[in-house]
């Protein structure tokens, strides 16, 4: 498989795929709003809403940004700041939650 070129994206039916992904994104937007409106316990609703957002983001990243066709190097470029952020959040949790909390 070739990586990182326009040619690496299958040309056949690609427009149809993009429209299907858009339709899925709209359906997931409606699902997120339904979770927000329905009387679901707050903690569960927040978890579900962000799970739906994660699925939407994955759809855009994989299909519109063609990440599913990309070279490992591109994944590494994206993963490094993401891992930094996780470390950043973990580092701040004790300070913000326990010192300023309550």
């Amino acid at each position, binding site marked *: *498989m*070739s*990586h*990182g*070129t*326009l040619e690496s994206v299958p*040309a056949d039916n*690609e*427009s149809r795929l*993009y*429209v299907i*992904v*858009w339709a899925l*994104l*709209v359906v997931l*937007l409606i699902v*997120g*709003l339904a979770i*927000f409106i329905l009387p679901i316990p707050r903690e569960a*609703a*927040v978890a579900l*809403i*962000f799970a*739906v*957002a994660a699925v*939407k*983001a994955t759809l*855009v*990243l994989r*299909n*519109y*940004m063609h990440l599913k066709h990309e*070279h490992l*190097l*591109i994944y590494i*470029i*994206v993963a*490094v*700041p*993401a891992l*930094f*952020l996780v470390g*950043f*959040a973990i580092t*701040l*949790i004790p300070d*913000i*939650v326990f010192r*300023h*909390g*309550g």
Partner: protein
Amino acid sequence: MSATADVTRTILPENDSIHEIAPGKIAIWWFLASEIMVFGALMGVFVLFSFSHDFAADGAHVKWRLGAFNTLVLVTSSLTMIMALASARKHNLTQTRMFLLATVLLGFVFLGVKGFEYTTEIREGFTPATGMFWSFYFGMTGLHGLHVIGGIVVNLVLLVAALSRKPWDFLERRIEFAGLYWHFVDVVWIFLFPLLYLT
């Protein structure tokens, strides 16, 4: 051949697929990685502060229906942007121009709705100085809005290039790279919307 290229080719053999990645693509992903740090840090701090501040009470005042509409607008603009690339790959100039124009117009619709939201909220007395939630709200959505403006400018430049019949190789690459940026701005909003409007 430059010294850097010599070193790269010493480390990686000629037939390694890494050489197939366009340099511009690595650059745009590198830029997006820095953007992940910017928006990710802001969102992370917002979430952490939500443990010690009552954001839910302030969050009840944001216009979630307008936020949902803007999500639909931005998601649709991502579709028109990728369709512009697909059209460019097929060398269909009319469709390429049409989809680029649609993406630009949807970007303006997004900004218009956001501007209406800001106006309404400020009239109701909610400004960046009102409290921690509103500082985050105006800061994060404002920064995102600046990125939308940047995307609109880039897409307008590409639209002018398409109207002046620039070569396809020129257009395809640039529409692809501009699209990566535009979709990233969409991904940021996909997380900002539930963070600020629904939780």
